[in-house]
């Protein structure tokens, strides 16, 4: 018995090669253009940031102060370098942040300390909450429970931050005041709510990492007589470590850059130190303060925003590079 094969008559086959090639080319150009827009935007932002930051460090304010100090005018390229070093030194070593005062001081660590404190508190809240819920969802919950709970957790990530801000100011702070003497604006309640805000992110991304640990690895531990807890702690979590750490770093970056909660709940008082019960001003809160006022473009205060923004950018960049390195160093490859 013979079976009819598809016809081999070449006249029946007429692929449109020319048109195909044109479509391929135009699609490539179109997609390339879209990709270029995002790359160009990033480059543009970074470039503006760098440019305006230099403007800040080379501002006449610093030049004049330096001239006063050394008793001669500061000029030329060498003068620029001197001014830059002088202002950078003050930026890094001053202990006060008073850019809007007549005797202005620009000690960035005043703002950094507040940001580190609120983000640090946030991590202290989000790491246990996020990691434990991730373990619970991935290892203990049934697949059905997981399929219901995980989207709910992710909805929490969609709450507008202004809502979180007022939650901190009007609910968490009064609640804390029942137990510890905190002021109306304080880093503690802002940090706690910041932590609640980033918890879904830590939980969801860590859960992905934990869930992705291959079943064969768990079976290997169980087959050696490990209990569920031993399997999770000694085998599953170490195997998911790189994913957990990168989720945490992403969440920290988010906390550092978060603006609304800290502006609303942590206060507007630049203060060096790590006392969580008093009002402080984070880097983002300062940027809000200046941009809300009627600071004229080109003034020193205006340029300060860029210097602070640049600092913020550098901190998150370093964190992201660390995360990138860590993931590459510790990611386990399973076939």
């Amino acid at each position: 018995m013979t079976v009819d094969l598809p016809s081999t008559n070449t006249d029946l086959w007429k692929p449109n090669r020319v048109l195909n090639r044109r479509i391929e080319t135009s699609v490539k150009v179109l997609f390339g253009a879209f990709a270029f827009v995002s790359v160009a935007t990033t480059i543009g932002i970074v470039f503006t940031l760098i440019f305006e930051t230099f403007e800040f460090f080379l501002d006449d304010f610093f030049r004049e102060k330096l001239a006063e100090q050394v008793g001669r005018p500061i000029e030329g390229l060498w003068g620029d370098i001197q001014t830059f070093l002088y202002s950078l030194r003050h930026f890094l070593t001053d202990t006060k942040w008073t850019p809007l005062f007549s005797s202005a001081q620009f000690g960035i660590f005043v703002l950094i300390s507040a940001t580190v404190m609120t983000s640090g508190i946030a991590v202290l809240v989000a790491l246990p909450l996020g990691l434990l819920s991730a373990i619970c969802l991935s290892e203990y919950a049934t697949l059905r429970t997981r399929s219901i709970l995980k989207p709910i957790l992710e909805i929490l990530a969609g709450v507008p931050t202004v809502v979180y801000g007022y939650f901190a100011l009007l609910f968490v702070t009064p609640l804390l005041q029942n137990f510890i003497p905190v002021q109306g604006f304080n880093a503690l309640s802002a940090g706690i709510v910041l932590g609640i805000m980033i918890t879904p992110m830590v939980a969801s991304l860590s859960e992905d990492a934990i869930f992705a640990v291959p079943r064969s690895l768990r079976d290997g531990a169980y087959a050696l007589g490990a209990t569920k807890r031993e399997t999770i702690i000694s085998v599953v979590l170490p195997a998911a470590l790189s994913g957990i750490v990168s989720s945490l770093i992403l969440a920290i970056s988010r906390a550092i850059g978060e603006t609304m909660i800290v502006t609303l709940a942590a206060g507007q008082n630049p203060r060096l130190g790590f006392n969580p019960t008093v009002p402080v001003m984070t880097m983002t809160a300062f940027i809000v303060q200046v941009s809300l006022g009627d600071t004229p473009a080109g003034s020193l205060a205006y340029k300060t925003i860029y210097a602070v923004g640049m600092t913020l950018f550098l901190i998150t960049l370093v964190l992201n590079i660390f995360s990138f390195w860590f993931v590459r160093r510790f990611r386990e490859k399973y076939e």
Partner: protein
Amino acid sequence: MVSQSSNNVANASSELALQTENLKVFYGSNLAVRDVTLDIQKNRVVAFIGPSGCGKSTVLRCFNRMNDLIPSARVEGKITFHGTDLHAPSVDPVQLRRRIGMVFQKPNPFPKSIYENIAFGARINGYTGDMDELVEQSLRKAAIWDEVKDKLQESGLALSGGQQQRLCIARAIAIAPEVILMDEPCSALDPISTLRVEELIHELKQQYTIVIVTHNMQQASRVSDCTAFYNAEATETGNKVGYLVEYDETTTIFHNPAEKETQDYVSGRFG
């Protein structure tokens, strides 16, 4: 007929390690394997052979109650280990798995150092002896010591596939089990690594009872004393149900099987 052939293997002189009686395994409401009755003697190598989906791995996973970890799995019938019912309420599967070790199809070393891969099982089982010595003994026993002795702190994942599998065997040996279950331990290995693992099985037979699932009939005839042949049949609903066809001395299964099905399978004339 099945129970008859299983008796061919049992002779009064040697001790029984594992025994199953009318074993049935369900996944959800689907019957996966039915009516498995066989006796496994101590210090022998028993091979499970048969086509894919005949339930040989499923039966293997009953012996250390790994099927407990699959929520939908349900086991009926009786399995005894040295006379104790494995499903008796007094039996803790966690403790059982220390006495019945397992090596899996794909090498699955933990993402830890070679040393820690071995020490992990000992530690969770409360081993109080000299850990360094135990690690060395286990690795030696698994014939991998010479290859890894200078890099015990390196990751177990950095080893080749064959080395990883021998590491997994060392890991299983380290907790001093009585039985080692092997689920197609060579299916992911090249022929040379396979040969090394087979030599290892010969060595291990002196001390352990070994049950090995394999797709490779030459392997079964090379390493095992007894062989169980499983087959599968389709039910009316389209599910495949595995069953034990014949269980006997390996030479009998390969040269003079009682069943025609077995004859067809081992001679490669399987439909």
